[in-house]
């Protein structure tokens, strides 16, 4: 009946969810692992889209006065490149890891609200199409990824382009918020007995901080977007200068959201490398407590630095000084993390699989981006750099060199857990080095082109300004990144089929997710483990590494109530029914609610097109469908 993972290497990988096959099972799934996989594939698809947009941008800028694309197309390309990479790639890739890992790392069988989780995914997937498809009709958003009003308002962007941006971001915000409520509840309430907050794996810790940033930052942009939406659709005056409206209102609201958003993008990657580095250094994370506190500190300070994006508007010396100092201050907890990662490796017994290379790559590249970030915190220096390619260099070092490197590290590290097979290390090494060289070749010269005065967002430039060579280098580097991406895609899809079998714990890693089979069965843990330290799997397999750490048993009542058993490796594969574990039913209803939302928002576009009756029909019909589906969802049992 039960088969074991000790099967020969040629044996097929086990089916993680028996009876769950076919398209319909994916549309109706509520399993956090399958939803994580959906996020992963969807976000990788958008990475391709955003990458192609970047390649077109760089091709246009390769030489002076090229006309590969028109100025209008170029506006759409850079707007969609930014919007795609922030909202459709990095956030959802992080969400893929939140979904897949958080329940496994805290010893839970699923998230707190499995159907809400499916809803978050479908809102993201459909919202992504809503904001991306217009590019095929030449009406993609074209006002920059931070949509500065009044440029993005009805007076200067009268077409459909920015409608899609305003409405699309609203849709994506719903997805992020719903997911954040879910993960906060999951982390607070579904930890296994003994899994205290200060024993949580660092990825879960950083994710926890990120969810709070999401629930506190997204409502602010929701309000700002509603104002813009009302200005565009209903003729209100929020950003209308002729009616006394203040264009700075948008900038303040956007960056009150926008700066925490930066940490929403980077902290999950920090969490991932905080898992990879101790594993491959075979040594506990250095300064665990300080790592957790510095993450919280970054989250707090992240809400107090937004106006450093706005030094150029002239807020006066007092505001400039306060935001300048707060920005320098936020460098401290970030620097603490860098030093702690280095100290984790120091004296360790290091291995260098691809995940470790990317993790070390993050430390190096993020540091460069961090240093140019501290340069921006000084208003006089900022005034020289603002709106130039120097800024573009800075945020690509932190987001590509930081967030994406960390995410690649996480993909190589967790691919065996997700698929049961290892990725190819040779191809991984090629990808890493091409990425590393390519990203430096692309983004380092931008520091120089920026210092020489090349502004952001221009679609072409004249020769003889000293920018030609740097732009050519950036373009060449981008093509290397495209090649690296193709190698990654090849490695990813090939390894799914033919990669070496991973077993429960291919890396000798310390946390709970490695105690169960790869891929994990649908119920995750046949027996909820009792956690007695930060590194339960090392307690089991390499106790010498955790001898110096605090160990203690959980409350006996909690152990009894959760039916928890001592930490052990689960090798048997039995079905949930055999184990008597109730599983949530698959359901289409979250998808239907998401669909209702999309129809309602699409009605706004139809309204702009002047088809009032159709628009009303879509909004009322979509709303009724939404409410009906929601009632059906709430009145049907979960399991």
């Amino acid at each position, binding site marked *: 009946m039960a088969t074991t993972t000790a099967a020969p290497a040629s044996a097929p990988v086990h089916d993680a969810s028996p009876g769950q096959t076919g398209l319909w099972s994916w549309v109706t799934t509520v399993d956090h692992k399958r939803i994580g996989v959906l996020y992963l594939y969807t976000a990788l698809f958008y990475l391709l889209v955003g990458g192609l947009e970047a390649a077109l941008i760089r091709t246009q800028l390769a030489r002076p006065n090229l006309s590969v694309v028109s100025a209008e197309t170029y506006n759409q390309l850079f707007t969609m490149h930014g919007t795609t990479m922030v909202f459709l790639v990095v956030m959802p890739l992080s969400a893929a890891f939140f979904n897949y890992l958080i329940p496994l790392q805290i010893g839970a069988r699923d998230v707190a609200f499995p159907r809400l989780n499916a809803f978050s995914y479908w809102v993201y997937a459909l919202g992504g199409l809503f904001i991306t498809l217009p590019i095929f009709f030449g009406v993609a958003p074209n006002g920059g990824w931070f949509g500065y009003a009044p440029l993005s308002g009805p007076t200067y962007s009268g077409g459909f382009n920015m409608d899609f941006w305003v409405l699309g971001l609203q849709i994506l915000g719903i997805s992020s918020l719903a997911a954040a409520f879910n993960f906060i509840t999951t982390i607070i309430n579904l930890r296994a007995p003994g899994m205290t907050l200060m024993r949580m794996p660092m990825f879960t810790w950083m994710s926890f901080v990120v969810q709070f940033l999401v629930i506190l930052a997204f409502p602010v942009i929701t309000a700002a977007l509603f104002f813009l939406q009302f200005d565009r659709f*209903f003729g209100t005056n929020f950003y209308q200068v002729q009616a006394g409206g203040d264009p700075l209102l948008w900038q303040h609201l956007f960056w009150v959201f926008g700066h925490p958003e930066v940490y929403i993008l980077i902290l999950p990657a920090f969490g991932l490398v905080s898992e990879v580095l101790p594993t491959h250094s075979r040594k506990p994370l250095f300064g665990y407590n300080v790592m957790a506190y510095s993450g919280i500190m970054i989250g707090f300070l992240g809400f107090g630095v937004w106006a450093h994006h706005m030094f150029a508007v002239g807020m006066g010396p007092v505001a400039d000084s306060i935001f300048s100092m707060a920005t320098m201050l936020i460098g401290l907890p970030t620097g603490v993390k860098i030093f702690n990662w280095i100290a984790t490796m120091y004296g360790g017994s290091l291995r260098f699989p691809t995940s470790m290379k990317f993790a070390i790559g993050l430390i190096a590249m993020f540091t460069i981006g961090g240093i140019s970030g501290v340069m921006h915190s000084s208003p006089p220096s900022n005034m020289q750099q603002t709106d130039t390619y120097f800024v573009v260099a800075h945020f690509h070092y932190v987001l590509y060199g930081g967030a994406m490197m960390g995410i690649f590290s996480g993909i190589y590290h967790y691919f065996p857990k997700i698929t049961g097979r290892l990725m190819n290390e040779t191809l991984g090494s090629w990808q890493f080095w091409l990425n590393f060289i390519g990203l430096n070749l692309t983004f380092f010269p931008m520091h120089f082109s920026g210092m020489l005065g090349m502004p952001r967002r221009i679609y072409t430039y004249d020769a003889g300004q000293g920018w030609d060579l740097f732009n050519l280098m950036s373009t060449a580097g981008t093509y290397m990144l495209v090649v690296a991406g193709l190698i990654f895609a090849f490695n990813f899809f090939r390894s799914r089929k033919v990669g070496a079998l991973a077993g429960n714990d291919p890396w000798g890693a310390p946390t709970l997710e490695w105690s169960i089979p790869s891929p994990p069965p649908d119920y995750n843990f*046949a027996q909820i483990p009792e956690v007695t330290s930060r590194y339960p799997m090392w307690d089991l397999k390499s106790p010498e590494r955790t001898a110096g750490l605090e160990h203690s048993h959980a409350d006996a009542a909690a152990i009894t109530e959760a039916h928890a058993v001592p930490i052990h490796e689960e090798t048997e594969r039995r079905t949930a029914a055999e184990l008597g574990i109730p599983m949530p039913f698959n359901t289409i209803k979250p998808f239907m609610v998401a669909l209702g939302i999309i129809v309602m928002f699409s009605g706004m576009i139809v309204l702009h097109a002047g088809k009032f009756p159709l628009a009303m029909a879509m909004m009322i019909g979509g709303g009724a469908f939404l409410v009906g589906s929601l009632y059906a969802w709430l009145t049907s049992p979960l399991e």
Partner: protein
Amino acid sequence: MASAPATASGAHEAHEHTHYTTTGLDNRKIAIWAFIGSECMLFASLISTYLVYKGRSLVGPLPHEAWTSPAGQVFKPILNMPVTTASTFVLLMSSLTMVLALAAVENKGKPGYEGLLGSSKTWLLATALLGAAFLGFQAYEFTSFVHEGLTIRTNLFGTSFFTLTGFHGTHVAVGVLWLMSLLFIDLKRGLGPKDAIIVDISALYWHFVDVVWIAIFTLVYLIK
């Protein structure tokens, strides 16, 4: 090692359906608090925008001052304090009835919770009706403002006022719908102590919407 967990799990078969939680609280209770935290930021943004734009309208009508248009037409201060004071009282009373509704659900069948005044149905209906009455006041207020020449497009005050109070009104409307749904369930099968959590979270939402109105009433209506 593999067989030990298997036998242990057999002991607590499928009849075990209450899920273990770390804090002992229901998941929904934690989620609603996170949601309310998030809503605070939404209303903080809406209220800040109203306050930032206070006194910056280029034309009238204005909330607390009379305004004479270039054509010589005189507009009175537009806010109607008696009406809004009454609607504020109605909404505050709805929080009281909400508390009584939750108490009636939690203590169903216990002494002191008999008859019409001990029934959750009475208090759920009362709360929903008071909420609906508040919405009626708001509809009256909005309509009379439009008749007096203030729309959402007129000036910065109209834009930020209708948006802020409109968002609050939408929240009240959602709350009324939620309460009506609870009432429907109560009439159909009766709400008892084991359903207290679903009434509890709706009550938290309702009180939050009420508290937001206190802030709006103070900052928009009372402070000149």
